[in-house]
């Protein structure tokens, strides 16, 4: 069971380490769980002991037209961002899989680096640049910015799937007389379909949660997370918990769907 040598084992230290793992997970999940619990708590000021079970914060959120506006923007933006970044990410993953060319390192850096730039800097750069070309302050500007940071995720997910493909499949199709386009349609795309769908859901989930860049560039078309940022600046409000729980369930559904799709066919061996 345990791969480690019998020599250096002490039940005490092993037990302490396992307890430590539990504590670390507790720290990570404490705010998530608390938000879930307090979203159903009747008291206005979240504290213990808890009040009684109540769905009033969900009702308060659901009856707020501004929240619905935010949700509509979030969903619309997320859907477009998911489709565009998956398409771009697919192209980049396929380019990396199939071609070798001068400057490929730079190409891959462009394809993968954006999420490592701090969001305040991306937000400011986007706001200044997009307003210069008259594209700021609307849903389109959020879409543009989100595609920049989401397409690397799509690229990584699809690239991983392509690396599991038998490299002789595509040439075999060519030998049988298929054009490059036909091979793409009948070999590459069917093989990567689970990863394409997985990337679609993951990029949507990333877009749903992103608030900083959206806060800079969205103008009046705020997304739901930007609304939450606004609530955070205002007074204590359990509405944040209700929205947070809702967003969490939406994101997790997308991620689990993606996970099921990605692990659906063949073992997910991570080969580079």
């Amino acid at each position, binding site marked *: 069971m345990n791969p480690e040598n019998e020599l250096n084992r002490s039940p005490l230290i092993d037990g302490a380490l396992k307890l430590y793992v539990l504590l670390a997970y507790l720290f990570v999940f404490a705010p998530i769980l*608390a*938000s879930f619990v307090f979203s159903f708590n009747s008291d206005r000021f979240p504290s213990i002991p808890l009040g009684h079970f109540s769905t009033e914060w969900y009702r308060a959120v659901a009856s707020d037209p501004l929240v619905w506006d935010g949700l509509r923007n979030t969903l619309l933006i997320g859907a477009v961002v998911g489709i565009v970044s998956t398409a771009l990410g697919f*192209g980049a993953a*396929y380019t990396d899989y199939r071609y070798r*060319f001068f400057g490929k390192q730079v190409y891959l850096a*462009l394809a993968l680096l954006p999420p490592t730039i701090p969001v305040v800097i991306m937000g400011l750069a986007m706001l200044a640049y997009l307003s210069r070309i008259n594209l700021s302050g609307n849903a389109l500007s959020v879409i543009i910015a989100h595609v920049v940071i989401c397409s690397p995720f799509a690229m990584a997910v699809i690239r991983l799937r392509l690396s599991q493909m038998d490299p002789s499949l595509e040439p075999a199709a060519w030998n049988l007389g298929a054009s490059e386009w036909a091979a793409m349609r009948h070999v590459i795309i069917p093989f990567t379909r689970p990863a394409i769908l997985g990337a679609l859901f993951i990029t949507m989930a990333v877009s749903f949660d992103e608030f900083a860049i959206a806060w800079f560039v969205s103008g009046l078309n705020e997304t739901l997370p930007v609304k*939450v940022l606004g609530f955070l600046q205002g007074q204590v409000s359990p509405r944040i918990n209700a929205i947070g729980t809702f967003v969490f369930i939406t994101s997790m559904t997308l991620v689990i769907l993606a996970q099921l799709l990605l692990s659906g066919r063949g073992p997910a061996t991570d080969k580079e």
Partner: protein
Amino acid sequence: MRRHISLYGLTFSLPLLIWQLLFFVFPLFFLIALSFWTVRNFRMEPGFDTVNWVTMYGRPIFWQAYGTTLALAAAAAVLTSALAFPCAYAIAFKLSPAVQRWAVFLMVIPFFTSYLVRVYSWQVFLSDAGIINVMLGWLGLGPFRLLNTVGATMIGYLTLSLPLVILLQLFSLIFVDRTLIEAAHNMRCGRLRTVFAVVIPSARVGLVIAALFSFILCFGDFVSPIYLGGGDPTTLSILITDTTKSGQQWPRAAVIALTMIATLLVIAFLSVRFAYKGREK
């Protein structure tokens, strides 16, 4: 090489290239130009004037914020790495593969949970009448001022970067050659000594990269310093958001952003060099 320049190939490779050039590279380079523009009567005027650089670099508050941000992010990277390591170590070496898979799955969940909601949740824990102070009250202690402190900012930074650091450390520890560990054991190398002499050096690249990511995340975060740290001491990211949102002082914000990018490039370069340096520590 020549035959690769086909319509087919370009259809797949060009869209991302064009998009990232237009909306990732250009905006970042635009910041450089912007930092030399001037603002007159609340309107930005293109030009080449070093006034923003001179103004910002002449302000003690800027350098204070710079020092604070650097110190906080460095502290967060060290603290996160130190706290994550025993956890990643235990998951990598002490848990069965099935439990390991669950541990990884669980650690992915926080990435899809709103960071804002988690920060709000910490406010509920840390405020004067919050959960922690109530519990301390039962023991006859407190109340302590927990919110709006540097410690609270640090909790926020940990919330932000701990999951990522644990995962990155875990992946580098899993690939540590187990025969090396067994060899160390067979040579009667003690537990701690094995960790420091074998495990950590073997996994060094991953550990340093994990710490670097933690640094980058915390260096650019404005949510924890504002909503948990109370905005005091000010960090560079708070300065950027304030400067951007109040009026038209975007050129000054650009100066701050460019300084941050330069700092990150230097830190990233140094960490990667350190990570790949020869065996000596």
